[in-house]
């Protein structure tokens, strides 16, 4: 036995395929009986479609080579968001200094 009472939250569940299938018919009947909720559902569906439209092309683009290679940026950036290269360079410099000092004191 499915539910008979619904609210705005169910509009999102239905839109995202999360409403249990046994509630689908009762949800439709609830929408038919509530024009305001029907309009809201149509509005969220159209905004969702708008997002798809605005973003769809990006996934069709050919990704830049630097991403397809899965390698480091070219040319390398020392101040990338993760700071990976910066840390790597600092570590390399430290090793160099330690190595030189070791050689000097040996």
């Amino acid at each position, binding site marked *: 036995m499915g539910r008979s009472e619904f609210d705005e939250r169910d509009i*999102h569940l239905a839109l995202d395929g999360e409403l249990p299938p046994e509630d689908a018919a009762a949800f439709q009947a609830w929408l038919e009986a509530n024009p305001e909720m029907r309009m809201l559902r149509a509005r969220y569906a159209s905004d969702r479609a708008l997002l798809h439209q*605005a973003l769809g092309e990006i996934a069709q683009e050919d990704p830049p080579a630097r991403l397809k290679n899965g390698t480091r940026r070219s040319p390398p950036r020392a101040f990338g968001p993760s700071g990976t290269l910066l840390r790597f360079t600092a570590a390399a410099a430290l090793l160099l200094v330690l190595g030189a000092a070791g050689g000097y004191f040996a």
Partner: protein
Amino acid sequence: MEAKRSAILAEIPGLRRYARALLRDADEADDLVQDCLERAFSRIDAWKTDTSPRRWLFTLMHHLFIDGVRARKRRMETPQAGPVIETQFAAPPQNGFLDLRDVLDALQEIGAERRAAILLVGVEGMSYAEAAGVLGIPTGTLMSRVARGRQELRDILDHQRRRRILKAVE
């Protein structure tokens, strides 16, 4: 190893779309994807092939995105003059009074966490359970972020439409 690598590379289009929607700027978005891929390749042994590469990669990228948001907040607390980079978009199609750039602008006005929720579910087509897993939150929290995020988007788009109509009338 090669199969893992191919599975990761196959996720690039979706990662790019998600990153662009999160950040708006094309270069910044690809940098985020690049960081995500670098992190993925450096931890490739930690990924078990019986879990979806998608969920794993989107989780890695979400952490990087949140780190970036925090860093940006810190930078904004100590203001610096920097060049303003305009993202170039080929003439976008119109949708009523709005063009599709307005939609991407509107997304930026939504709080980062709600933005991520409506994108993972509404654009990337993840289930609530999958999206909640990526964001590291309970499903109930995800549901309310989706609902509030969409409400916010609706209000912002309405505001933009009103502005456009006023402009057109003038």
